[in-house]
């Protein structure tokens, strides 16, 4: 196996239970910084993201949580002038920030769900066919894979009779669950959530939150959220971002229980108690 990522053949040989694999990967971040031309958005990040746990990134707006999250699967590459320095290592040794890393296979292994649901403006079925075909699934396996993940996100019974209809016609909450299913379909080892509930109504938000919680143990989850109550409910670990000297950084991290109840950093403490931020 090379250091740039698992190949599909290896994945196919992995014995699967109940239709999907249960491999999760840990992430080890050290000395990470994200720069936009001359501006440093995030700096000095050291963080261990253990496999199979839910890590919540919290903190006020503009402190670099999203920049950090997007650097974990190199989506920062899309932004002209953006540069990431430091190390992000997957548990199999893959160095995310290395220029030779196969970005496409990295993004299959480290999936992402965005703030605004973004299904492709095509049929529900095509939303799965396009990425699955791209990553080497055989055409005849695609319907089963799609059904499995749509059941996992609780959408199958709602939409199984209109898979040929446009995904854009679904409600916001359904669209977001579709996007989660689409990311899960590729059998990722890590899944990143960038404020996945903030564009949804409270009920849909609750459904999505439960869904993310249910991924615990099977996948490594990293979630950026502004909803502290949500972070408290679902996170195993938490990291508090804060702007120090104009640069976003992590001022407190550890088990969620301790971070939320007994933060040692004064900025983190005042933010988490609602006094600042």
């Amino acid at each position, binding site marked *: 196996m090379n250091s740039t990522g698992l190949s599909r053949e290896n994945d196919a040989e992995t014995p699967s239970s109940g239709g999907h694999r249960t491999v999760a990967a840990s992430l080890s971040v050290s000395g990470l910084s994200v720069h936009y031309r001359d501006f440093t958005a995030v700096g000095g990040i050291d963080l261990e993201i253990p496999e199979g746990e839910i890590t919540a990134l919290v903190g006020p707006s503009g402190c670099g949580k999203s920049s950090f999250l997007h650097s974990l*699967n190199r*989506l920062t590459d*899309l932004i*002209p002038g953006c540069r990431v320095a430091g190390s992000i290592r997957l548990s199999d040794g893959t160095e995310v920030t290395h220029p030779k890393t196969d*970005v*496409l*296979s*990295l*993004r*299959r292994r480290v*999936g*992402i769900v*965005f703030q*605004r649901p*973004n*299904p*492709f*403006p*095509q*049929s529900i079925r*095509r939303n799965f*066919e*396009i*990425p699955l075909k*791209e*990553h080497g699934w055989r055409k005849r396996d695609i319907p089963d894979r799609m059904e499995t993940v749509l059941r996992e996100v609780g959408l199958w019974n709602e939409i199984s009779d209109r898979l*040929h209809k*446009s995904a854009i016609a679904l409600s916001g909450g359904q669209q977001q669950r579709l*996007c989660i299913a*689409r*990311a899960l379909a*590729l059998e990722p080892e890590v899944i990143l959530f960038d404020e996945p509930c903030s564009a949804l109504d409270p009920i849909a938000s609750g459904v999505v939150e439960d869904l993310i919680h249910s991924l615990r143990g099977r996948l490594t989850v990293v979630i950026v959220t502004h909803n502290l109550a949500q972070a408290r409910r679902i996170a195993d670990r938490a990291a508090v971002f804060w702007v120090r000297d104009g640069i976003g950084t992590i001022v407190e991290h550890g088990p969620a229980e301790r971070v939320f109840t007994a933060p040692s950093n004064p900025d983190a403490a005042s933010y988490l108690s609602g006094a600042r931020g």
Partner: protein
Amino acid sequence: MTPPTPRARPVAPVWLDRALAFAGATAALLSFGLFAWLVWDLARLGLPRISWTFLTGEIEDAGRSGGIGPLLVSTLLILVCCLALVIPLGTGCALWLSEFVRRGSLAARLVTGGVDLLASVPSIVFGLFGMVFFGQTLKMGFSILSGGLTLACMILPILVRTTLSALEALPADLRPASAGLGLTRTTSIVKLLLPAALPGIVVGITLGIGRALSETAALIFTSGYSIRWPSSFWDSGRALSVHIYDLTLNVPQSGAMASSTALVLLALILVVNSAAVALSEHWLRRRHQTS
């Protein structure tokens, strides 16, 4: 209860709204009237002569009688040549501008500037260019090929501009969505961006077809005057618009024939445009639902 605050000025008068609505309706009516009058006038003069023999027959007596069969074929062949070049060229150029080069970079500014300048070049200049470049330099002579390629250059800016704005109008989160799933740029462009932009691209193509079919000046020196049945793209062939021009200018007592030809040209534009729209809708629906 507080008394209502006294107004410094009375509310804007309602009659102004009404006057504006009336003025708008008048302008709309006049615009439609112009179109209706044009079609009615053409139909009044030209419709009586239109028949199967007119559509398929050869020109007789310099165009005073007979039909327009060879011209119809030449016109369609010119259009085929034109579209075969302009669709890949125009979409390719727009794709490069929107997906591969940073907006505002020197290269992008140069290309868009060049394309926009091309749009303001008078068609007679394209005709002269086509005659020299395609006709003489590339040795295509007076031919349907020369004419079609010249038209392609002429309508290229329309296609680039409409395709570019269609691509730029796509939801901004489509690109991160596809990148986040690890799709290659090619897959993203071919399977997501182009299908989503297709309605806009088709608008560009139909506008271009309209321009191309009605063009006269660019064709006179390139595809020429021949009224024989064309046997290949290398033959000279007279387009319908050139025929109308010729009848009106050079052939006395042929006004009714010119009207009939114009009527056929109008119908042709309508048919080709609806075909393009129907085709794209069919294609979109198929992509949406199956495979």
